[in-house]
């Protein structure tokens, strides 16, 4: 699963999830992509699960780009622990997704296959998404 190799600090504050995606909201590499419409935390597990779902459909054909990286540690206190005694330990890596963010991009496969793959990937995610296409030349 994706995670940073080096970090400056082990733990981070949660922060806010206001507004729309500041960048990464247009297709940069592929012809077709999955765009977030909702907001929330996307864990490394979810990124991997969606990637596997895409890989199942496209098999060896085509290319996939992952446009998000889980660089934020998510901490949790152990079960049945009293409050206090400091912040919990990091349990997983997450990324904050805001509306408009492109999550995955694909290229080099039939449109129908790409749609199926991205739709199956969308079921692994905790927010609404839509499939976006590049405006092609006719």
């Amino acid at each position: 699963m994706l995670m940073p190799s080096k970090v400056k600090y082990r733990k981070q504050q949660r922060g806010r999830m206001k507004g729309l995606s500041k960048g990464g909201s247009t297709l940069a590499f592929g012809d077709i992509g999955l765009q977030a419409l909702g907001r929330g935390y996307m864990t490394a597990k979810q990124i991997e699960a969606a990637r596997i779902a895409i890989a199942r459909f496209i098999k060896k054909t085509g290319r996939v780009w992952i446009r998000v990286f889980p660089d934020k540690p998510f901490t949790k206190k152990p079960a049945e622990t009293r409050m206090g005694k400091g912040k919990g330990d990091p349990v997983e890596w997450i990324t904050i997704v805001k509306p408009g963010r492109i999550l995955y991009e694909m290229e080099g496969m039939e449109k129908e296959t790409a749609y199926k793959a991205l739709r199956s990937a969308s079921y692994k995610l905790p927010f609404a998404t839509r499939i976006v296409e590049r405006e092609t030349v006719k």
Partner: protein
Amino acid sequence: MEELIIDVKRRTEFGKQKAKSIRGRAEVPGVIYGKHHDTVHVAIPVESLKKIIKAGSNEILRVNIKDNGDAGQKLALIKEIQRHIVTDEFLHVDLYEVSEKEAIKTKAPVLVTGKAKGIELGGILQIVTRELNIKCLPTAIPRHIEIDVSQLNIGHTLHVKDINPLKGIEFMDSPETPVVHVMIPAKEEAIVQPVVAEATTAEPEVIKKGKEAREGEQPAEEGKEAAKDTKLAAPQAKEKPEPKKEPKKESK
């Protein structure tokens, strides 16, 4: 290339709130600027903008500007269209005023034709450059630049220098710029991957600051904290004493 005619209104309202009210009237705030011309702020009807986009992004526009009875005409190209990232609503349009006699630098989209040989052998076609920078007269701007990839084999790349030269069009990109590439297929990976528990618990390396003296202080502080923790944890330990190991006695 065809000329499209678009009627726009001169805009005298500026700012965020005014722009919002313009969008509420099914118009898009825009601006027309050029090298040797004064800037004109306009409001463009959404419906006519949609028609233009459908026709193609590189079309020359004959812009009729209406201004309280006065009318002016300008020749322009769409330079940039800003859209809302979620709703796709038009936010702003930049039009670049051009002269029919002066060559301009612009971009033309790449249109790939044919099926590459390499794809039949399992390769993946990758379009590296989707738009080419060109220099030509506004009337000679192509709708797209066709590139035939039928001769491309696995691992082969088509560069800007390989494109057939077009009359009146000069490519501004480096001749060595790759345009289309047939990639070698990636090795098949095991799709079913077991969920590795280690990956979630494993922590990355924490970058420490340079001063050794501070680092030296840390263990002492940590030691104090640890001592506090043991004191606090002590009652819990009394509540749940560890069971004694009886098997040793049995062995004797």
